């Protein structure tokens, strides 16, 4: 059993920002994302005896957060904010450029099965093997999904660009 309690404060400081971003990517709601991160650390604290090696704590926390998100969806579907709207509460680092809104919308339109591995790769920096372990997928399936996710993003952004060129809303 790894001594999570000894490293807990450090882990919170180091990992809560990226876990928050991952949560935000999953639920697209800042309040829910905050709750998810808090609940993730609380669950980690309660079940710290299941963590065998502190080195795997990061992937472990991502998995807990993902499970928490799935559990939340079982109970209720959190309100997803329209990506074209500014957040009600100012979020530090919130990109307000037109391209950012377009990208956000394209991301939102991605099916969960494509968005999840993409978030884990881009935010968590996990390899396809690690993502495969976290999502219970074969590495090749992860690669296929990453390929499709980016292709769909690019297609939608291209489409949006064409619509703008033709004066479509």
């Amino acid at each position, binding site marked *: 059993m790894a001594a999570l309690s000894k490293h807990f*404060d450090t882990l919170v400081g180091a990992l809560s920002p*990226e876990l928050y971003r991952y949560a935000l990517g999953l639920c697209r709601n800042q309040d829910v994302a*905050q709750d998810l991160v808090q609940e993730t650390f*609380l669950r980690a*604290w309660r079940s710290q005896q299941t963590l065998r090696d502190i080195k795997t704590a990061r992937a472990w926390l991502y998995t807990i957060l993902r499970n928490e998100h799935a559990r939340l969806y079982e109970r209720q579907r959190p309100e997803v904010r329209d990506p074209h709207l500014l957040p009600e509460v100012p979020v530090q680092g919130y990109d307000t450029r037109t391209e950012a809104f377009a990208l956000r919308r394209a991301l939102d339109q991605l099916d969960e099965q494509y968005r999840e591995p993409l978030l884990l790769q*881009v935010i968590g920096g996990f390899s396809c093997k690690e993502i495969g372990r976290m999502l219970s997928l074969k590495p090749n399936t992860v690669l296929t999904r990453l390929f499709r996710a*980016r292709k769909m993003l690019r297609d939608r952004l291209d489409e949006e660009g064409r619509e703008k060129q033709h004066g479509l809303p």
Partner: protein
Amino acid sequence: MDCLEFRRLLLQDPYRAEPELLQHESGCAECAHYAARIRQQEASLRSLLNAPAPPPELAENIRLGARMERRSGYVRRVWMSAAASLLIGISISMFMLFDQQQARGNMLLARSVIHHIEDEAGHLREPGPASPDRVRAVLARFGAELVGDLGPVRFAAECVMRKRTGVHLVLSGEQGPVTAFMMPGEHADSPIPIDSTRFHGEIIPTEWGVLAVVGERGEVIAPIATRLARSVHWPQGSRLSAQTPLAAHLARLGIHSPRTL
């Protein structure tokens, strides 16, 4: 590597840098242009996803939550151990109470048997014999049937013990009279030995009630109990509980068929 493969790999991870990939990129203008667009899109994506910062209080709230959890965990553990101790205490008390009640119940039943014999000591002096018809008639009142030879029966009657009616028999033993009580509906959890200054015997639980066989000190009870078991059939089926030497002895003799005793 062809263009299709290059683009497939690039979309899996736009920042991968295998030599083959870079070689194709430097030799194919269209793919180099495609790669530039994809990397630009990737840069925007990474910037978009990695930009939001959590509220400053988030980390502190998490730490606070963990501290509360630690404290409540401690309090919970204290309460749990207190509750566990209490539960164990109650269980032990209940067990002791139950055990005491059972022992008390056994003692009262044994005492009732002795008192009944002493109160009706005159029956021990009955010269007998009671006729087989008389015995049949008494047994018939309880639906039981005499199917064998009980040996010399000095006395047979219906009697009342502990507010229940039963069969009171006095048989002849080696040391003197042997009293047998057949008490339908009476209950004993386990065999109860009977010992007094004068008498000794045993109360044996059966499915229909209890059988008490009591003789003078030194009397061998088992053969008489065997005779009783073999010679009387009860209507609703009964079985001796083979938990005592006597019951085990009867069981060994095969006297535990559903209709026997």
